[in-house]
């Protein structure tokens, strides 16, 4: 178990570094898929099978597919990424450092977080227990999240339905039709 944890720990860190240092956005995205997958392996090693499966379904399977889609369709992968401005670089480094410090402090001082109080440690991998807690103890938070996602869906439909303005000027279907119309009028 410990050996597996070390192997997958190293793999997780390596693919996380790959996300940061990969030369092209698509490669970064694929490294991120790897990172999320290996994180799921860690969950599984700790006995939280349910969380591991959800991690792969939701993050690696759905969200990252969307990210890869956006990279492909918007042509963001034309060449190597431009150099980020120094401000982004330094602020990112500072925040990551702070977060790492916080995590190290938490782990070395055996802090107990109140967040995990609902599910006892032994049953964290049991879908029945997670489901029970979701619709009893955390019903309020659960419904709020459902409302938030619903609002996001309505927002997406509204945005996509805006017929006066194309979604992405110069790139969307409207722009293609517009240029076709222009060409037709020029020919006429």
């Amino acid at each position, binding site marked *: 178990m410990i050996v597996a944890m070390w192997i997958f720990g190293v793999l997780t860190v390596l693919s996380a570094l790959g996300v940061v240092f990969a030369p092209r956005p*698509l490669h970064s995205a*694929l490294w991120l*898929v790897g990172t999320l*997958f290996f994180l799921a392996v860690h969950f599984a090693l700790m006995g939280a*099978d*349910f969380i591991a*499966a*959800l991690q*792969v*379904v939701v993050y*690696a*399977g*759905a969200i990252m*597919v969307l990210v*890869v*889609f956006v990279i*492909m*369709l918007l042509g963001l992968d034309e060449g190597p990424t431009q150099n980020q401005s120094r401000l982004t670089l330094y602020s990112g480094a500072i925040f990551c450092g702070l977060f790492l410090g916080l995590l190290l402090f938490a782990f070395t001082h055996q802090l107990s977080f109140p967040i995990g109080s609902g599910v006892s440690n032994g049953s964290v*991998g*049991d*879908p029945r227990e997670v489901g029970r807690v979701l619709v009893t103890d955390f019903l309020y938070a659960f419904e709020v999240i459902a409302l938030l996602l619903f609002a996001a869906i309505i927002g997406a439909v509204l945005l996509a339905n805006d017929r006066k303005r194309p979604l992405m000027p110069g790139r969307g279907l409207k722009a293609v039709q517009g240029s076709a119309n222009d060409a037709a009028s020029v020919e006429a």
Partner: protein
Amino acid sequence: MDDLLSVGIVVVKAAVVMGAVLHLAALTTWVERKASALIQNRIGANRAAIFGFDLAGIINTLVADPVKALTKEDFVPKGVSQFMHSLAPFMGMFPVIISFAVIPFGPPIVLDDRVITLQLAELNVGILYVLAMGSLAVYGTVLAGWVSKNKFSLMGSLRASAQMISYEITMGISIIGLLALYQTLDFASIVEQQSGTVLGFLPKWGIFMSPFNWIAFILFFVSVMAETKRAPFDLPESESELVAGYMTEYSGMKFLLFWLGEFAEIVVASALVVVLFFGGWQLPYIDVSKFTLGPLIGAMVFGAKVSAFCVLQVIIRWSVPRFRYDQLLNLCWKLMLPIALGNLVATIAWMIWLDS
């Protein structure tokens, strides 16, 4: 010593399962060729025979395909990353093969002091694991279409991913009612619950467990067929429009990997249908696990059921014409999804009525 034996057992089980999946997939390619020849009167496969023995033609197919693939030139388009180009077939194949790990294929073997379950990984969330691997399979097709730098490939992979993501939803929702009946996500326990009879004469298989489960079965079967990306759902590689879709720029062994992955997907889909709806390794009216040779009989029953569904999928593939793309997505979002939700509500209502 005991640890070493456990590890050895796991290794043997892994070898047997992976070997069985790949062999079944290879055999399905032969069935596919024969069925295509029979159904559409295609010349070639119906004449593959050795000294007049029709069945011996299986050797022709099983040897000729790999030899052809291995000796072909491995062509990589200009300006394409060699690594990514090779990565795509593996990313398509890998999730399909490992999703077989949670499928129980027989009753446990009980030796004196040791119980060997005929299942590689005893996950308590087996179904979620299979769904997760299914959602990872999208990357193979997406990547293949993207790295090829070919418009046909890109179109094919976009179609494939939209199709796979859409049908994953109906696939998941159609079995929620069934899982509520089983009260578990664990495949081994699901199969164990399917012994005995309902109403006195029907085998207590998933499909007969509630009056609505046959709807769930049809929805699930159509969804997994759409996930395998074969006719009538083969829009991603429709030859008449897109050359070969996301596989256009692949040749030789890489193409064969995609192809074999597709057939492995058929086997996994059949196994899922059998485990969820048709009793897994259970034989109707007879409790197989009571016999001394129970595990062997169970595995054979399971293999027979899976093979039957593989053949059924091949027959459907060669008898039904291809959908149009908008019809495909309309079928999923406007027809199957509402029916799946209605089926879920009906099943839950039936359960509550049964309880009261």
